């Protein structure tokens, strides 16, 4: 469904992606792990055109991703994104955040959008917070609203960019459990994360990225339990046993 072929990307003189080739099948959950600054987030941002890429090709369901072309708008409605810092619209209530895209981009009738928006908030466990503005919600609640906002576009896939990294530890679980439910329902997901437990239990496949290249990839359990490459081994040792 999502294909990356030899994707290169530089910021100025620094090459952050040095030839990434990967694919994500429908209903697959792929976790991207690796050290900070390895290019994980940049891959996600290239997939939905928030960043352009210099060489190679990215396609979503056969359509080429080009951040400078009008076609990017259609791709973005199919591939939603959830951000590390939630990026909810603070001047709109939780429900308004969720129905913004359906109303103004998809031009759905208001009643229909509201009904579906409420159902989505209920799905992420926030039915009672529909009229609350984001600054009054906890980080975990904000991220769940953000997931509902992404779902409201009825996307074919959702990209998660470190969705729990900005959360207090006790709030991580509520977000991960929503994501696990999505995965169980067959949503195609690409997740940049440091939550190795989530990656091991929920992901179908794991890509380990370091220095802008895919160092190792494979079934989640085998990469995380028996990493082959020394860099993967070293990274996992440091993440799982920081002391």
């Amino acid at each position, binding site marked *: 469904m999502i294909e990356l072929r030899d994707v290169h990307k530089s910021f100025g003189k620094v090459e952050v992606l040095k030839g990434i080739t990967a694919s994500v099948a429908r209903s697959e959950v792929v976790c991207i792990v690796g050290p900070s600054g390895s290019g994980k987030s940049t891959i996600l941002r290239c997939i*939905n*055109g*928030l960043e352009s890429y210099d060489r190679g090709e990215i396609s979503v369901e056969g359509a080429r991703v080009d951040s400078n072309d009008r076609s990017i*708008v*259609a791709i*973005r*409605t199919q591939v*939603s*994104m959830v*951000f590390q*810092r939630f*990026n*909810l*619209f*603070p*001047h709109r209530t939780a429900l308004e955040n969720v129905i*913004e*895209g359906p109303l*103004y*981009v*998809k031009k759905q009738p208001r009643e229909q959008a509201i009904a579906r928006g409420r159902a989505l908030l209920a799905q992420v466990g926030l039915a009672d917070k529909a009229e609350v503005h984001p600054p009054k919600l906890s980080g975990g609640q904000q991220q769940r609203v*953000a997931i509902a*906002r*992404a779902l*409201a*576009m009825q996307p074919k896939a959702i990209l998660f960019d470190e969705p729990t990294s900005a959360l207090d530890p006790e709030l991580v679980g509520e977000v991960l459990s929503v994501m696990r439910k999505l995965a169980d329902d067959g949503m195609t997901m690409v997740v940049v994360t440091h939550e190795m437990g989530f990656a091991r239990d929920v992901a179908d496949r794991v890509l380990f990225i370091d220095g802008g290249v895919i160092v190792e990839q494979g079934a989640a359990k085998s990469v995380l339990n028996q990493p082959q490459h020394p860099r993967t081994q070293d990274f996992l040792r440091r993440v799982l046993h920081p002391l």
Partner: protein
Amino acid sequence: MQKFFHDAVEFVPILLQGVWLTIVVTVGSLLLSTVLGLIWALMRVSGIGVLVGLSASLINVIRGIPIIVLLFYIYFVMPDFGIALSALQAAIIGLGIAYSAYQAENFRAGIEAIDKGQIEAAQTIGMGWWLTMRRVVLPQAVRIILPPYGNIMIMMLKDSSQASTITVAELALQGKLIASSTFKNTSVFTLVALMYLTMSIPLILLVRHFENKANRK
């Protein structure tokens, strides 16, 4: 003091005609400067090279010319090019253009203060540039823009007196005309000052209201 009140009764009705014109000039040029300023600001943040350059140059040219010269230019020079405007029209257009530069810089500052993540979030739900501006950026930028906008309103109210230089009989010019024919300078100009102050006070309170609202956020 009694003399002052006596003069006031006599002159206030004439001065009020000037007040009316002052309000017309201020409101007219405020609307024009707001529209133009928003256009310059949106050009400036559009990311399109030509528009960015054009808007930056326009703003600098406008900022670099004194209001009074701009007014003279529109009122006295434009007729040479076949564009004859009434004094009132010229005043509104001149002040509107002059202040559009300050409005634009204020709007731009407000727009640029919005977190980039907001724009990215809007993009990822499929919003284009204009929808992102209208639904996400501008509604948030307004909170930041309003307090300085209120100050610009006060400055425009006072600078509307410059319209007197091209014969618009607004408050300042009415005052000058009465004073020069009656020699009651003290009474007349005190009244003129009080009238400007009276018009400014609601605006000053409005600015304070905007500031409180912005700070509460």
